[in-house]
């Protein structure tokens, strides 16, 4: 008998979780599970934030995918040309075709600096940098080291972005870093956002806004960037506001994989229209979408796919067994926000509930404070790297799951 095929596109957080969970859920005599990813290297993306400040070394965030994926799962390291969803086929770049019965797409989002005029100009990689890629974070460490004061501009191009609090954390950590090396007085830190406040959610926005104030970080809101001027070293908005920089740390537009575009199944950001509760692709009955690759209105963050994975597994098993899909995702997301000075804030929210001030019960560790700066939250954030490598991407429970 020909084995049935479960194909998983993307070997990131999502692909790893499923590679560990499905061999326990499916009869492996009847099923083949295959993960396809273009790169054999797995990056701990939350760690990119710490590299520019020398808190993490580049090697702290890198592992081989082959060592992480479940041994019973096939892996193919190749660029994907496209999905042919009406034929249940994924075509690789070299023409090889993979048939599937069920497909899970977890190909994430990438930065697209080409979307803004001049962003990838002559200063890119030297004075205009990102920290959403490994190369960007490493180059930024050098740029921070060489920075001698002036205008540091931290900038968000457009929403949605991965880990929407990361640029705020970068601002807080910069304040800390410049104080430590003694050039804070010579440095203006600017936080530039297209949003109308520091964050999208009201109470959190005001907490973060106050923190920016306290740390003397200038916030520029509703700034929609039109261009980066490499000659005058300014960012310019569509309504012609100009902010000069000596070092520009930007979060470029985040877009889904080019492969999604080639497949013709994405929206204008190459994100796949997905049911926010069942997590099945809207237009296809045997495709699920996990993590950043979908268009659902939640954060793009590793904790999200952790919370989603159970729903996708249960609904996919329901479809396989001709039962109705009953598991629902309600938008649960949480994250630690590093605020500098060895403190952090924890936020927790879903589709209905905004982050608020309170306590988050964690068995064996005790309650962590929500939306409040504490030393314990900072330790939680630091412990997260260990939790990520040893539990999250192995599809195990984490202490934060309530």
């Amino acid at each position, binding site marked *: 008998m020909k084995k049935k095929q479960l194909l998983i596109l993307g070997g990131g957080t999502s692909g790893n979780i499923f590679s560990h969970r499905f061999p326990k859920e499916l009869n492996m005599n009847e099923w083949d599970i295959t993960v396809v990813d273009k790169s054999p290297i797995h990056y701990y993306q939350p760690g990119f934030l710490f590299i520019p400040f020398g808190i993490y070394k580049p090697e702290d965030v890198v592992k081989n995918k082959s060592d992480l994926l479940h041994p019973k799962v096939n892996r193919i390291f190749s660029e994907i040309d496209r999905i042919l969803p009406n034929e249940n086929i994924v075509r690789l770049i070299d023409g090889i075709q993979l048939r599937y019965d069920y497909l899970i797409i977890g190909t994430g989002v990438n930065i697209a600096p080409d979307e803004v005029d001049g962003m990838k100009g002559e200063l890119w990689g030297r004075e205009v940098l990102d920290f959403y890629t490994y190369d960007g974070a490493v180059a930024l460490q050098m740029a921070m080291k060489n920075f001698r004061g002036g205008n540091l501009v931290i900038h968000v191009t457009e929403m949605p972005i991965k880990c*929407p609090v990361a640029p705020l954390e970068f601002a807080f950590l910069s304040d800390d870093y410049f104080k430590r090396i003694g050039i804070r007085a010579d440095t203006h830190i600017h936080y530039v956002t297209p949003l109308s406040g520091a964050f999208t*959610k009201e109470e959190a926005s005001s907490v973060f806004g106050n923190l920016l104030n306290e740390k003397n970080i200038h916030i520029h809101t509703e700034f929609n960037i039109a261009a980066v001027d490499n000659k005058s070293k300014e960012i310019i908005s569509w*309504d012609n506001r100009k902010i000069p920089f000596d070092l520009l740390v930007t979060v470029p537009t985040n877009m889904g994989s080019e492969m999604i575009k080639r497949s013709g199944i994405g929206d*204008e*950001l190459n994100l796949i229209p997905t049911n926010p509760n069942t997590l099945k692709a809207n237009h296809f009955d045997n495709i699920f979408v996990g993590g950043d690759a979908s268009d659902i209105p*939640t954060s793009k963050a590793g904790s999200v796919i952790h919370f989603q994975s159970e729903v996708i597994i249960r609904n996919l098993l329901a479809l396989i067994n001709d039962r109705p899909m009953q598991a629902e995702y309600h938008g649960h*997301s949480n994250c630690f926000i590093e605020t500098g000075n060895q403190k952090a804030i924890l936020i927790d929210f879903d589709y209905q509930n905004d982050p608020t001030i309170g306590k988050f019960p964690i068995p064996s560790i005790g309650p962590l404070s929500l939306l409040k700066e504490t030393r314990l939250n900072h330790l939680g954030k630091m412990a997260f790297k260990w939790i990520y490598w040893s539990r999250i991407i192995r599809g195990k429970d984490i202490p934060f799951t309530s």
Partner: protein
Amino acid sequence: MNKQMTEVKFDEEGFLINHTDWTEELAKTIADSEEIYDLSQRHFEVIYIIRDEYTLNGEAPTLRRLTKVHGFPTKELYQLFPGGPGKKAAKIAGVKKPHGCI
């Protein structure tokens, strides 16, 4: 018959609560309060696209969607709705405020 302005409800930021209350006349009144005094045919092209999308998807289109999918140049949108086309155009189109994603 058009509803009188006094019967129409707005939220605290001035967005229409019920998008079916919207009329072209009302659009002109809202635009006035946003200091856009002359709604041209081009304004209404954008406004009707926003209303269509809202009816279809339950949400106002993002700026990116207006440019990439519907072909309005960003620069022109800023000229038509100075200071923030995404939000202002949605307000004048009588639909709910587009929520930035989280």
